[in-house]
């Protein structure tokens, strides 16, 4: 399976994320029940959708959130992991666009294949795709007409020359 297909196949965070949520909510001490409930629902409702154009991520039971990002607008990709996450084989992928916020636009959590996803996103993000020289559709369609127009002029000149030679 290619990298793209493997990433497109990701829809749910790994169960290790739930373990991480449980552990991190116990860290707040006696009021662990509140984050535990919130994070539990967050985990249960979290969905990822990778397609050709971008990522969308949604979560929430009562208050739903859905964030959609286009790959071409991604600017920085950071990987962050603390000790607990590393013990569980996880890392957070923080994705940034050029917006004016200091915190991440989207944080992909609970993916064991974070390095693959990071490389995948990197290959599609802004500034990198342009570097590979793939022409966008509009330009590509205008190229042949320009070339054929030039060819017609050349053919016209050729005819003039031949006419002159015959005289």
């Amino acid at each position, binding site marked *: 399976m290619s990298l793209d297909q493997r990433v497109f196949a990701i829809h749910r965070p790994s169960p290790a994320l739930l373990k991480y949520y449980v552990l991190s909510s116990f860290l707040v001490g006696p009021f662990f029940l509140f984050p535990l409930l919130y994070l539990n629902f967050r985990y249960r409702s979290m969905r990822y959708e990778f397609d050709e154009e971008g990522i969308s991520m949604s979560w929430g039971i009562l208050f739903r959130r859905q964030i959609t990002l286009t790959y071409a607008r991604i*600017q920085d990709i950071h990987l962050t992991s603390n000790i607990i996450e590393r013990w569980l084989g996880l890392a957070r992928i923080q994705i940034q666009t050029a917006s004016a*916020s200091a915190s991440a636009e989207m*944080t992909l959590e609970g993916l064991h294949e974070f390095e693959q996803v990071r490389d995948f996103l990197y290959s599609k993000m802004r500034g990198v795709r342009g570097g590979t020289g793939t022409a966008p559709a509009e330009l590509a369609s205008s190229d042949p007409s320009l070339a054929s127009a*030039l060819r017609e002029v*050349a053919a016209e*000149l050729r005819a003039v020359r031949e006419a002159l030679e015959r005289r």
Partner: protein
Amino acid sequence: MSWREPILRLMRVPHEPAPPPGSPPRLFRAAPNFFKFRLVRWGLTQLLALAGLLWALQFIHWVDSTGVPEPVIWMMKAGEVIGWLVFAFEFVFGALLVRLDYEMRWYMLSDRAVRIREGVATIREKTIALANVQNLAIRQGPLQRLLGIADVEVKTAGGGGSGGGEMDGKKSSREPMHVAYFRGVANAEEIRDLVREGVRLQRNTGLGDPDELQRPPDDAGAAVAELLREARALRAVVG
């Protein structure tokens, strides 16, 4: 076996980061003086903590003489003991972490991207495409100047203000997201120039669409060459 291995294994610190996309990267490291710099900073915080603990001891002494009920005094004393234990643990472990933090730093620069990995407890690996770099800066404080080190700052478009992100409120770190630092390098100017050269060689400005600048299509180029050939031949016949 050194003391590093068990700690790194316990904290699950992965070894060297994967190189960034593009050509084989040049690797830069923090200068040895950066360790000294961090050690001084760490030493100052330890002094502060020590002063706090000693002050608390004095305070308990004073409270004791004012005739506060016994259980309160006992609570305070227990707090003081716990404080000293935490301090002792943090003192030893903190010193090791300062050393490890200095060693576990990778600053990589390829022809396409910068990748910076830092941190031991929390590991941060930032990748910034050179095409998206907006500005570069060098920062140096007085102590850093004394030690001959500086930080190179690589910034991309976007704000630095606090909050405002789509996922705000959820463990977004205090670390600004649109900036990456080559911290504590001895050759800051060389790195700045190398990054700048790399940015200059990128084909777009990092502000518009990825396809904002395109080469003229090759097909048209061939047609123009053909046209030129024909025009020359024509002139040769006429002239």
